[in-house]
């Protein structure tokens, strides 16, 4: 348990799916053979150059990669410190980083001969990305979404339906993202022969945290090359928001062994960490087991899972990917948090200074950039992952600002 940190932080997990004390495969026996089959299929796909070639072709021509690394000049001037760059993953097809992962998983599903895809979604971004790729490849798509979220995110529900997906509202439990994930697992256990479960973040039983991270690592790999081209050197710091943590893991992973680079993950502090209404699993949670892995969770003293809260439905999850839990314990990544109010303020600032309407998720990251950048020198290169666009959030923001749309 107290093993020294490995020489490289990029070799995890071990063959049993562990990042230190986190991760693992905590699933029912019915699912265990499926999880093992997925692991085999992923290993074979990684060894097959044709898989990478096909994936790269779709990333270029369908998703629209590489996404730009953009020098946010006015934001930098406003902060009066570091040079701030935005990695513009909000410019991807479907408007967020989610599609990087979905593309990879759908290609795996096709290799495995699975014709029916299920997914969970909170804000609807992962659901929309999954519905999109299923439409593109002619696959059946069922998306589980908490009944509360279906009501909160009507535009995305309609988008998924237009794309041919069936959206099933989940009325059990607390009716939000964690319950949607429970219901997707129940579907998977009931349809083992036909169905591929496309998980939206770096969580779930091994190998999901690994394969989702790998598919999202295109973000960090592009950032390395783009920063070298722009500035002739690597960045000095990285900042990304964290719900489950897939956009952050994708940006961070290629840089974990560059010891001089500061890395910051930003959790959602909701209405504040002193009360129960937040979604900061590392700041306010402790280790436990949910949805197939051990990681930091929000829960009560009896091990009952708590409801997360954030203004951003995409960060509204009571857990975090196990690799983040491990990086937090090691101290390699510093985990901060931003409140609903701070995110709203950063959201508006980004609109007015840069002409970019960000999603509320990366607005949390920006809120911390606004604190970190002024304390860094002018030659400090800071990269923030602008992982989603804010069109989906205008109703929420309008409501909080007292406007009626």
């Amino acid at each position, binding site marked *: 348990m107290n093993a020294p940190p490995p020489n490289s932080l990029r070799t995890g997990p071990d063959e049993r799916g562990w990042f230190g004390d986190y991760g693992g495969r905590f699933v*029912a*026996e*019915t699912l265990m053979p499926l999880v093992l089959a997925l692991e085999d299929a992923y290993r074979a796909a990684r060894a097959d150059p044709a898989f990478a070639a096909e994936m790269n072709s779709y990333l270029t021509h369908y998703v629209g990669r590489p996404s730009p690394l953009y020098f946010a000049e006015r934001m930098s001037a406003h902060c009066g410190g570091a040079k701030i760059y935005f990695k513009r993953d909000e410019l991807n097809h479907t408007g967020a980083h989610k599609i990087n992962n979905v593309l990879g998983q759908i290609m795996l599903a096709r290799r495995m001969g699975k014709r029916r895809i299920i997914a969970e979604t909170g804000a609807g971004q992962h659901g929309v990305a999954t519905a999109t790729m299923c439409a593109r490849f002619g696959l059946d798509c069922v998306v589980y979404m908490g009944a509360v979220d279906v009501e909160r995110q009507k535009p995305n529900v309609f988008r998924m339906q237009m794309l041919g997906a069936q959206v099933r509202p989940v009325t*059990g439990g607390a009716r939000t993202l964690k319950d949607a994930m429970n219901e997707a697992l*129940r579907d998977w256990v009931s349809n*083992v022969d036909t169905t591929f479960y496309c998980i939206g973040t770096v969580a779930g039983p091994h190998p999901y945290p690994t394969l989702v991270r790998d598919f999202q690592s295109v973000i960090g790999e592009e950032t390395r090359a783009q920063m070298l081209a722009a500035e002739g050197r690597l960045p000095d710091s990285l900042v990304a928001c964290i719900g489950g943590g897939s956009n952050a893991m994708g940006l961070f992973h290629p840089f974990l062994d560059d010891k001089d680079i500061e890395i910051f993950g930003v959790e959602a502090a909701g209405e504040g960490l002193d009360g129960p209404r937040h979604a900061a699993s590392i700041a306010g949670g402790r280790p436990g087991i949910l949805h197939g892995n051990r990681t930091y969770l929000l829960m009560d003293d009896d*091990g009952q899972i708590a409801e997360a809260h954030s203004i951003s439905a995409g960060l509204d999850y009571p857990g975090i990917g196990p690799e983040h839990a491990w990086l937090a314990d090691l101290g390699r990544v510093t985990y901060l948090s931003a409140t609903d109010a701070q995110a709203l303020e950063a959201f508006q600032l980004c609109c007015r200074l840069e002409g970019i309407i960000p999603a509320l998720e990366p607005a949390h990251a920006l809120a911390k950039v606004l604190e970190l950048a002024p304390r860094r020198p002018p030659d400090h290169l800071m990269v923030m992952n602008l992982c989603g666009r804010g069109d989906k959030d205008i109703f929420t923001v309008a409501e909080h600002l007292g406007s009626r749309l």
Partner: protein
Amino acid sequence: MTTRIDTRFAALKAADRAALVTFLMAGDPDFDTSLAVLRALPGAGADVIEIGMPFTDPMADGAAIQAAGLRALAGGQNMQRTLALVRALRAGDARTPVVLMGYYNPIYVYGVARFLADARDAGVDGLIVVDLPPEEDAELCLPALAAGLNFIRLAAPTTDARRLPKVLTNTSGFVYYVSVAGVTGSAAPDTGAVAAAVARIKAATALPVAVGFGVRTPEQAAAIARCADAVVVGSALVEALHARGGGDAKDPARAVTAVSDLVARLAGGVRGARTRAPST
């Protein structure tokens, strides 16, 4: 180490009949009703008592048991009270095996060593923890076996011949065959397929094989009891409790009657399953 589970199955084998295993959620809908219902089970014909440990996120359970867990939590149930429930049940019944069933997180948070000590002390005989496959045996299975508790593993229709030995290793008490790939309370199993699967498992182990998931009626229970060593009924009992006495208007006496009546009918099915017409 011989447990109450081993003793009970040996006795039933000698009597040439299958066991009826009943599942109810601890504290559903409240502690007192739950205890009253549990106390009546052996008299009604239950041979092994499974008690659910409530959890907010029961990913292998269907609607009935999900709702039962949430009702129990709303009624103030927690791990300490679940162990207290077993202790109270055990005070009046020294022989009926008691198995706790649920998910790992509440055990992990309670503390594995403390849980095993307290569970044994309360009179628990075995554990079924849905989200602990053999790959994670170091977490709870091996410590439980060392503490003298049975660790009862689930085998599923997806468990193929190559994997089965891995599932059977470190399993004790009995093997619980999940009769359908699905959640609890799902469609009735196909008896022919179940018989084939039970035969496959029995060829690989000397342990008794119980069959559950989707068994609701005395007729279904009888059909399973012809090929398996035990029949597990859960969702149907949980629904009976909730529909007649445990619902909004709580009435312990009616809950006891409703559950006991169904258990008696199920026990009739199980006990009559292997009797043949007397030879002339």
